[in-house]
């Protein structure tokens, strides 16, 4: 073998990428996710109008109607009940949806991985207490819990993050705990103990890096769930508060005009559908790529 052959850091991730690259649906999902993220970031540049700007003389116009507030002079996707440009509101709504999805999953991962690692590594009473709390959260109907938290803390996007994280960590903790239970019996972990390394070091360096795969899949699959949960909460009037646009509260507003102006509710619906679908495709692909034994 050639001297100095070095696969450039982590050959594991290289392998994962090679497998993911071959998976067409997953790559489609990845591309859409990247496009949507880019759109969310540069929404102010793409939007033809200010998403909050009203024009009461042009209420509920169908797609393609002439507009006074849009820079291109047309309501591409129509206008809402206050004459606001629906396209601009969808673009800005992507910011809400994606940030809810990502930030809530960051919180879920932080809490869930910590709890799961502690429960799995130490076992005994620690495990018992953490997992019983997780079981209670599992037994609780999610939506009821969200509604309860939102009532207690008041509706705002920050409280949506908190509500989603408070219930979401339980699933992550279970996943991480089962991985830790398995990995803690590996001989390299025993070798680390025999070397007198600290528990923190063993968990952070020898156990957690080896369960990154399932965690990444769980995060990717958790994002669409969080987006849907935010949409449900906004639909119930408990999520993001008008006039700030979110896909959920747009559907909520559109439901009154379902019969007369059906396209109004269709646009945010399509936006949610494509985003959730793409994340799910990406998540499926990542799961296959990270665990080649699962298929074939």
């Amino acid at each position, binding site marked *: 073998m050639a001297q100095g052959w070095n696969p450039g850091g*982590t050959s594991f991730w290289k392998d994962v990428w090679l497998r993911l690259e071959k998976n067409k649906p997953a790559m489609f999902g990845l591309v859409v996710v990247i496009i949507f993220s880019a759109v969310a970031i540069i929404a102010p540049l793409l939007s033809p109008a200010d998403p909050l700007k009203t024009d009461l003389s042009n209420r509920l116009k169908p797609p393609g109607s002439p507009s006074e507030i849009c820079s291109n002079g047309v309501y591409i996707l129509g206008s809402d009940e206050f004459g606001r440009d629906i396209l601009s509101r969808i673009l800005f709504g992507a910011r809400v949806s994606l940030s809810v999805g990502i930030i809530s999953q960051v919180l879920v991962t932080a809490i869930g991985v910590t709890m799961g690692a502690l429960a799995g590594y130490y076992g005994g009473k620690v495990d018992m207490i953490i997992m019983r709390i997780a079981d209670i959260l599992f037994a609780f109907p999610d939506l009821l819990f969200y509604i309860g938290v939102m009532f207690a803390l008041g509706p705002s996007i920050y409280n949506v993050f908190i509500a989603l994280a408070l219930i979401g960590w339980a699933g992550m903790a279970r996943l991480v705990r089962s991985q830790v239970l398995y990995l803690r019996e590996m*001989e390299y972990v025993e070798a680390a103990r025999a*070397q007198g390394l600290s528990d923190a070091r063993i968990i952070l360096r020898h156990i957690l*890096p*080896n369960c990154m795969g399932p965690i990444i899949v769980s995060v990717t699959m958790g994002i669409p769930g969080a987006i849907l949960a935010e949409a449900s909460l906004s639909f119930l009037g408990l999520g993001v508060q008008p006039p700030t646009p979110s896909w959920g509260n747009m559907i909520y507003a559109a439901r009154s005009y379902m019969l007369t102006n059906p396209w109004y509710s269709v646009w945010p619906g399509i936006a949610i559908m494509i985003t959730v679908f793409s994340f799910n495709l990406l998540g499926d692909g990542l799961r296959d790529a990270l665990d080649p034994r699962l298929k074939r």
Partner: protein
Amino acid sequence: MNQQKNIIEVQGLVKWYPVKAGVFQKVAGYIKAVDGVSFSIKRGETLGLVGESGCGKTTSARCMLRLIEPTKGRIIFNGRDIMRLNREQLRKIRPRMQVIFQDPYSSLNPRLTVKEIIGEVLAFHGIARGKELEKRVKHLLEMVGLAPHHMRRFPHEFSGGQRQRIGIARALATNPDLVVCDEPVSALDVSIQSQILNLLEDLQARLGVSYLFIAHGLNVVKHISHRVGVMYLGKIIEVTESDEIYRNPLHPYTQALISAIPIPEPKVRRRKILLEEDVPSPLNPPEGCRFWTRCRHAVNICRREEPELVECAPGHKVACHLYGR
């Protein structure tokens, strides 16, 4: 400096696992995995420990290192009773006693480079850092027969034998006094086995390290051990010099093990001693001598009284009623 002759002394080591049963998880009995094991290892010596699977040899070794907490027993390492050490003190002393594992695949963390695997313990205990650490890792790699440039690779780029060499380098990184070799060759090809055994012997000659060498067959420990202990159902039943155990095995169980070693000579005919029945469960070992259910020489006393491990010839201890009375 007052150098102890024995690097480690294990006295009356016991590990019982509670067996829980019923709705209330009451303790219904104990699996007596290790039931009163005593042995000692001198500096620079290799003690082989053999016995069939489940006889408690690995558990004894793990208890000795306190990787598993023993139920009872005294372990004197370098003149210190390590059963009395708290977590922090134990952590400090751990680099002095290391392990080489059986499975070269699960014993190396797949996410770390060879340098990280070998060097981690040095960095963690502040023994070496930066350039000095790299130098020591390179030196260790050369010592176990690998090349310095291997340190940037990952475990999956190596063969089983090479991985075992990395495991040996990791165990030797802190220059330990004692290394437990837990069946280090049983997962390897026969052609590789002798290479690893020779390497371990060379390293002992160079570094003066002591080994506790665990194996399930006598043929593997034959040429590496100075003394051999035979375990049966959680007890040591015979200990003596390595040559002596082949020439003059006393315990009927040891005799059966010796007769099971294949001789690479088709014309030699030897009476094989076949053991009848299975090993009794360690949950409920037979009363008296543990071996009587399968022993050809069993007499009445064997069923009633448990024989003690007594010295019946200089340096030859055996636990059997046939001798020593």
